[in-house]
C-alpha cells in the first residue's frame, strides 16, 4: 500500500504528535542512535583515496533515499500511520515558521551555548540525550541563520535553477562537478562567502549546531530536510523521465574516480542496494 509523505505545515496536531511520539520511541530503544552512527560512518570527503557513497558523490541522492526509507520503516513499525513529513524551506523559511513550534521540532538554540530549550527534543525535556556526536555535548544545538555571519535559506528561484539541470550528474562526479542535477542540489560551489553554501548544504548551515557536522542526524529536522531534498529529486525525475542515474558504468582504471564512486548497478553500503533500485519510489510512497 503506497503511503503519503506530507508537507509538515499541513500536518494536523494529531499527526504532529504521532510523528514526534514515534521518533521519541526510536530514541528510547537505541535504534535512533544507530541511524546517527550510520550517517557518521559513511561520510567520506572527495579529496581522499576512498570510495564515497553518501556525500560529494553521485549516490548522494539514492543513498539518502534509502536511509530515509530505513528510518521511515522503523517509525512505521512503531506506528503504521506515520510517515516522514517534508520541510519546504523555500516557503517555511524563518525561525517563526510553525515547524519550530513547541509541539514539533522545538525552536532555536539559546545564545549562550546554542542549547535547544523548547519542544520534545530539548535535553531538558528528558528524552533526547545525544550519544553519537563529534563533541562531548549531550544536548541538541541549533544556531538559526548563523547570526555572526548571517545566511538565508535557499529561495524558490534558486531551487528553480537547480531544476533546469538536464543530466543527473557529471564528471568528475564530486563536489567540483560544475553541471548536473546532483551537485546543484547537494550544493557544493566555488566562489566566496555564503555563495559557497547552496541548496541542501545551505540548509544544514542555516540550522547550524549539530546539523552542521557529522552528527547532523541527531537533529530530527534532518529527516524533514532530506525528505524535501528527496521530493525535489522526485519532481526532477518526473520532468526528466529519460535522465538515468550516472555514471552508468564504474570509472575505469586510470580514471581519477576509479573505485571512488558508485555506478548505476553497484551496491551501496551498508544495505547493498544499487542506485538504480532506488530510482523509482512510486510503489512505496508518494509526495502530497
Amino acid at each position, binding site marked *: 500500500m503506497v503511503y503519503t509523505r506530507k508537507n509538515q505545515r499541513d500536518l494536523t496536531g494529531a499527526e504532529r504528535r504521532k510523528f514526534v511520539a514515534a521518533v521519541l520511541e526510536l530514541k528510547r530503544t537505541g535504534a535512533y542512535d544507530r541511524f546517527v552512527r550510520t550517517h557518521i560512518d*559513511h*561520510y*567520506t570527503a572527495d579529496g581522499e583515496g576512498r*570510495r564515497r*557513497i553518501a556525500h560529494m558523490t553521485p549516490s548522494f541522492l539514492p543513498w539518502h533515499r534509502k536511509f530515509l526509507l530505513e528510518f521511515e520503516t522503523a517509525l512505521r513499525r512503531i506506528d503504521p500511520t506515520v510517515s516522514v513529513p517534508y520541510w519546504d524551506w523555500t516557503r517555511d523559511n524563518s525561525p517563526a515558521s510553525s515547524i519550530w513550534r513547541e509541539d514539533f521540532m522545538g525552536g532555536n538554540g539559546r545564545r549562550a551555548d546554542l542549547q535547544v530549550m523548547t519542544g520534545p527534543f530539548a535535553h531538558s525535556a528528558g528524552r533526547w540525550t545525544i550519544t553519537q556526536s563529534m563533541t562531548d*555535548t549531550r544536548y541538541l*544545538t541549533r544556531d538559526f541563520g548563523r547570526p555572526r555571519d548571517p545566511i538565508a535559506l535557499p529561495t524558490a528561484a534558486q531551487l528553480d535553477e537547480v531544476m533546469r539541470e538536464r543530466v543527473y550528474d557529471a564528471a568528475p562526479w564530486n563536489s567540483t562537478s560544475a553541471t548536473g542535477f546532483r551537485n546543484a542540489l547537494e550544493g557544493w560551489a566555488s566562489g566566496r562567502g555564503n555563495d559557497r*553554501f547552496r541548496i541542501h548544504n545551505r540548509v544544514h548551515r542555516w540550522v547550524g549546531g549539530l546539523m552542521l*557536522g557529522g552528527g547532523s542526524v541527531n537533529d530530527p529536522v534532518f529527516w524533514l530536510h532530506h525528505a524535501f531534498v528527496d521530493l525535489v529529486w522526485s519532481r526532477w525525475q518526473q520532468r526528466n523521465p529519460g535522465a538515468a542515474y550516472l555514471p552508468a558504468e564504474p570509472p575505469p582504471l586510470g580514471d581519477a574516480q576509479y573505485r571512488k564512486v558508485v555506478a548505476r548497478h553497484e551496491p551501496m553500503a*551498508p544495505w547493498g542496494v544499487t542506485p538504480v533500485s532506488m530510482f523509482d519510489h512510486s510503489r512505496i510512497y508518494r509526495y502530497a
Partner: protein
Amino acid sequence: MIVPRRVALRSLFALAVTAFTGGALGRVASRPEPGGTRDPHAFDEVYRGRRLLGFSGPGGEPTVLVDGWPLHLMRCADGGYVTPIDHYESCPTPLAATRAAVDELGTARLSPLAGAHGVPTDPTGGSPRGVHA
C-alpha cells in the same frame, strides 16, 4: 618545546586512537627537533582559548589536535579541508579548517568520533565501526 602535561596525555590518547584506526596520528610524538627539517603542517597557536596543534601524520598528511583531542581533517577535491564539526565548508588550509571547527565548538570539547569518523576498510564504502559498533 615544552608540551603541557595535559596535551602530552591527550597525545597518548591520540596514539591509542592510532592503534585503533590504523595510523592516522602516528607522529604525535615525533615533531621535529629545533633546527631540524621544518614540518610543513606544523602550527601551534591558541585560538578562542583553544590550543591548536598541527603536524604531519605518518603518510605526510596534515593532522591536528584541539586541546589535545584529534580532529579529523578530510581532504576535498577543491584542495581544501572539511572537519567532522563543519561538513559543509571546505577551508583552504588545515589551520583554517581547524579554526572553523573551533568557531562552531562553543564550550564543547571534541569526542573520540571527531578524530576518526568515516574510517574506511569496507570495499563498498562503509566504516568498519558501522559493522562492529
